[in-house]
């Protein structure tokens, strides 16, 4: 833990938040699971260290720890420490839900069971470091529900496995499918098409994050409006109107940008109506290029 990280933790305001920590400890089942108040305080310190932004005050820290799922947090940490009573509780409450989540993610019985078993092994802790068992449950921070966290971990594992398998493609199968292995793609020609791509890039960069998320989920991931709405906790009609509004606004913005860069309005309109295949925009090459790191890189 770095020095700067320590300044964000509860220790910075120990005298001010101690009553809150004590109150949370007393109200939680931590004692039943063999977690002392000092250990409990260290857990909360770990959470605040990780998630409190720079310059956060004691009120932010207090708000964060009071919003945590304390009961589930202590349960997870007690399981990570090997407490039998905690494991009994965990299996009683979450075993069925783990399998259910795996089924809804994988849609296949065998894959789901493998996914759930793999997660269980990670949760229990198959590896040790310095004599201490490493359990994935030790990384649960209580920001969201434990059930939701388990579901997300399963989803992430599934995404990792699926994308790994997609990358490992048989060359023979590719040849049989008629795919040819092309040489390096030349740079796109400098013509009106490049100006369209450039204008689109500029306009998309000026979009808000939520708008870009909606467009990416809808156009790139082919998610339904209902799914996007659920992820943002809004109504489906809201997302429908939002995407419609964004795409209309994008067209106007791209046209304006093209005109601003010296293109005739009529030519710009024709350029937007031109077949994409003539644009010579090689999506594969663009995706294969290394992009700049995502802004707002999360703290470790």
């Amino acid at each position: 833990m770095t020095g700067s990280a320590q300044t964000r933790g509860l220790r910075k305001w120990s005298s001010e938040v101690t009553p809150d920590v004590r109150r949370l400890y007393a109200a939680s089942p931590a004692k039943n699971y063999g977690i002392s108040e000092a250990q409990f305080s260290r857990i909360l310190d770990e959470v605040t260290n990780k998630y409190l932004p720079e310059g956060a005050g004691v009120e932010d820290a207090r708000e964060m720890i009071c919003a945590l799922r304390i009961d589930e947090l202590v349960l997870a940490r007690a399981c990570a420490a090997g407490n039998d009573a905690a494991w009994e509780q965990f299996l009683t409450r979450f075993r069925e839900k783990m399998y259910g989540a795996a089924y809804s993610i994988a849609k296949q019985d065998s894959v789901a069971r493998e996914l759930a078993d793999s997660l269980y092994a990670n949760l229990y802790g198959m590896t040790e470091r310095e004599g201490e068992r490493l359990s994935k449950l030790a990384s649960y921070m209580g920001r969201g529900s434990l059930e939701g966290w388990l579901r997300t971990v399963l989803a992430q594992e599934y995404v990792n496995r699926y994308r790994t398998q997609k990358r490992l493609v048989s060359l023979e199968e590719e040849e049989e499918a008629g795919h040819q292995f092309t040489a390096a793609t030349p740079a796109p020609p400098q013509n009106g098409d490049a100006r369209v791509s450039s204008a689109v890039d500029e306009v998309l960069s000026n979009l808000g994050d939520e708008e870009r998320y909606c467009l990416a989920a809808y156009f790139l991931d082919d998610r339904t409006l209902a799914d996007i709405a659920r992820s943002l906790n809004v109504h489906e009609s809201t997302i429908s109107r939002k995407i419609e509004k964004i795409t209309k606004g994008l067209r106007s913005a791209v046209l304006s940008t093209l005109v601003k860069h010296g293109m005739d309005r009529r030519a710009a309109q024709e350029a937007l109506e031109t077949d994409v295949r003539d644009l010579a925009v090689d999506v594969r090459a663009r995706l294969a290029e290394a992009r700049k790191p995502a802004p707002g890189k999360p703290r470790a």
Partner: protein
Amino acid sequence: MMQLEKIFREGLARQQSVAPEMVHLDADQLTAFLEQALSQPERQHVMQHLSRCVNCRDAVALSMPELDLMPAAVAEPQASIWRRWLVFRWAAAAAAVVVVAGTVTLYQTNQRRNTVATIVDGPAYTASRQLKPAESAQTEVATKTEANETKPADRVKAEQPVMTAELHDRDTVSANAAKEKAAPSKADETPTLMAKAQQPAAVPPPPVSAGAAAMSPNVSSPATVATLDRPVEVRGGVLTGAGASGFPPGSGRTLRPSEEPPLQSYDQPDRVFTTTAEARPQRSLSIGGRAAEAAKTLAKREPMAVGMFAAPPLPNAPSLNRRWIVTSAGELQRSHAIGEAFHPVHVADGIFFKAVAESGMEVWAGGVGGALYHSTDDGNSWMKLMPSAGDHPLFADITSIHATQRGAADLTTSNGEHWITVDGGQHWARHE
């Protein structure tokens, strides 16, 4: 517009971050995002990442709970709500007019025909006819839902009375079987044993515990309560005698030398196992004697069942495959299949269970005050056991049970004792 969409699609694809060193959002952040538990700055940061990371977007989409578990979405914008209210109002008025007109017509028709309507449906369905169409659909759905929800519990409870009746029948059958088996068999046997076997009635009936008579019908009947220090004659591997009434032949109590290795530890050259009162000091498991052998047998613990999963068994891990648990409220629960929900199993009234162990179809459940129950048919029927070693009965709370092979169990009590059996609870050895 299609062309425009293609242009935007490609533009968005260009903006996706594919750098391998990119750090993805952790599960806590994604979960908190979906559950609206992030602060505004955090949410903005997460949204920023999600707009450029297809992996994290996929994880979000996959980890969303089922539709009925999602928190209620934010209310629709007011304009659409108002429009819908108007439409609903007119639709309700139209429906009311139709219902009233239909009712009046029906009444007049019935009056003209002067017939008595016979009710052919149940009350619920008849009642639904009186409701408005929209409400009747809801009533039917609610009725069906209610019926479905009661099914698992009803199914569990319905099983037990039937099993109890079977147990009663087994008692009768076993008593008759005891008489039939008293006839000489081809197995090696001594004349003394034959004489005893032909007079099963001579053996006094097992004592009935005070609580047994008060037990609910779902519990094994008093006649099947086994007291472990009662003499039980065993011939050719089959239990006879009054004590055997608690162990009907078909319930797994039949002991055959070839299938029950622990029992072969009894020194019977003719392979006839006798546990009469006079032989008890040699037969019963006492500390230092047979208990040592029993302890050695139990020391060879079978590996925990892995089930059908490919993952290797985790050392000392609580098994994910187990189907019996005890809740913090002392309730015994069972899952019919791995991955399915747990349902309460009623064994006896007033028992606070603290430990359960399973080994195949055999289940041991123990609790406060030395309460101990044993099932050999996966919990469909139960036998109340009262372990005792000599004059020392088990009265402390049973805090853990370890079941290894069939008929063998190792109990740990709250006062630090270990109780071991290798013959399905007939005899016990006590260690402090």
